[in-house]
């Protein structure tokens, strides 16, 4: 099954790569779009797990654990964020292992609700383990992303917003690639089989729990990575911030808005909703922005029930 790359996607990626070169001074847009990439990564991570048919409401737990693990490594051992971020994201994977074991039998709404409850566990523990995690006080003054030398070119990831944008864009594109691979491969079809009919999948000899767990581990690592990056971009972590329910709902909103289980859906959702809110609604309506935001969501759902991505020309599907 060869899937030709749809042209609009290539054009979109090109636009995302090139625009900072056209508007080099637009630091605030680089800032906003950089964070958009970060949230799109989280949404793509969520989508990876959603490919197995699971609607998770607990991805904030992965995000928060990634953020805290990286922050603690940086705080206690003073390792470079370039090291602590990929290592810290492993904490999310550890939690995902428990998740995969504990929620083996849960499906559908109940999995969603259980994951919502599971968020409380790392949150409360981090919040109350004062001696190690500083509890509710959070940790401040984390190291920023350091400078890196790339072929004689000094790139300050922490201070140079353009470099930071490209880093986050790169990570997002990696997540897109991972999603692409996970949808259009033998494993992707295995996940789809599990999503559509688990009984039939088991009858074909597919170990659905194991495949689901694989997807979850990948998903949790990506979400943890997003959390770890978040911690070092802002320089602080706090239980209430990184274990926030809003971080669990955000990927859900982006994915449904953009079109779930499609590769570009989460990206599209993130790149429409987040910049719309940050660059337009908040400056224009300091008080009533969330009303407009809510209206946009409602109207979009009525006009594009399958998400915005359904509106784009579809990648021709091989038969």
């Amino acid at each position, binding site marked *: *099954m060869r899937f030709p790359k749809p042209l609009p996607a290539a054009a979109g990626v090109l636009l995302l790569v090139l625009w900072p070169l056209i508007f080099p001074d637009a630091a605030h847009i680089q800032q906003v779009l950089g964070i958009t990439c970060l949230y799109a990564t989280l949404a793509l991570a969520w989508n990876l797990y959603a490919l197995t048919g699971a609607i998770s409401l607990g991805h904030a737990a992965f995000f928060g654990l990634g953020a805290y693990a990286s922050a603690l490594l940086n705080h206690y051992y003073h390792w470079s964020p370039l090291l602590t971020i990929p290592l810290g994201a492993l904490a999310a994977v550890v939690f995902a292992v428990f998740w995969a074991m504990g929620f083996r039998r849960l499906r559908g709404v109940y999995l969603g609700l259980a994951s919502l409850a599971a968020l409380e566990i790392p949150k409360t523990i981090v919040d109350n383990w004062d001696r190690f995690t500083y509890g509710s006080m959070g940790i401040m003054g984390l190291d920023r992303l350091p400078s890196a030398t790339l072929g004689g070119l000094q790139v300050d990831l922490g201070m140079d917003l353009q470099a930071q944008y490209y880093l986050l864009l790169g990570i997002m594109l990696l997540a897109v690639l991972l999603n692409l691979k996970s949808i259009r491969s033998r494993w992707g079809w295995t996940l789809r089989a599990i999503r559509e*009919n688990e009984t039939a999948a088991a*009858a074909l000899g*597919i170990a659905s729990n194991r495949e689901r767990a694989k997807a979850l581990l990948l998903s949790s690592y990506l979400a943890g990575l997003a959390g770890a990056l978040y911690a070092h971009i802002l320089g602080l972590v706090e239980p209430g911030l990184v274990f926030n329910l809003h971080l669990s709902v955000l990927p859900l909103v982006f994915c449904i808005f953009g079109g779930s289980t499609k590769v570009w859906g989460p990206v599209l959702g993130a790149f429409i909703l987040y910049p719309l809110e940050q660059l337009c609604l908040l400056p224009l309506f300091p008080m009533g922005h969330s009303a407009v935001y809510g209206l946009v969501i409602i109207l979009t759902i009525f006009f594009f029930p399958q998400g915005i991505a359904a509106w784009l020309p579809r990648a021709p599907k091989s*038969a």
Partner: protein
Amino acid sequence: MAAQGPQVCLEVRQIKKYFGDQTVLRDVSFSLPAGEILGLIGPNGAGKSTLFNIISGWQKADAGSVFFFGQEITSWTPKDLSRAGLARTFQVPQIFPEMSAWENVLMGAWLPPQSRPSFSKAQEEADHWLSLVGLLELRHTPARDLPLAQQRLVELAQVLATRPRLLLLDEIAAGFSLGAVKRLAAGLAKLRDQGLTLLLTDHLFNLLEEVADRVLALDRGEIIVQGPPAALIHHPDVVSAYLGTRCGAADNGEA
């Protein structure tokens, strides 16, 4: 003929199953030599589906054991059984609703971890099995849009594509016209000649009559009679428990 010779493919020993205080199966035992087609009949609620579920790992027996080519499989999970070559279809067809008929069959040829064929090989096989059940012209139709009987055929092609050694068919012919039943029977007989062992249930006696080497009659969780289909149809116990009066048979196509 069967590659395995007269080897025993499936052996069921003393299976018991209770639902609450109701006994569904009591000491069901039989054995199925490789390369044979065994039929299973019985009135509604006799325990046919439960027996199928126990053999294929979807339900646990309360007592007794099941052997598959000499190996005890009593507590195996469905996926392990499928990998070992024991496949089944369901009364309510279990297919992938959003995928096309062809994709469904492709899943059977491509996904099972035990075989891992190349993609092009799997495609060829999907074509092969889909044409075998006669659905080649409906290959692009999403499975959920197909009528129930054709969904059953899609499911059959899908499990056949996993290349099983033993296939359990649960009322596969329900809703088939007699012509279709004939074609199916011919196809199954051919598969048997290629070495597949079959266990099937059917309400309408016609399919069993066409293909089964032997038929078990189940009533209230017990095997009451067994023998060749022609003998069973006139057996007084079967008639009273299952077929009703003789003219009931006329309803089953013995025009």
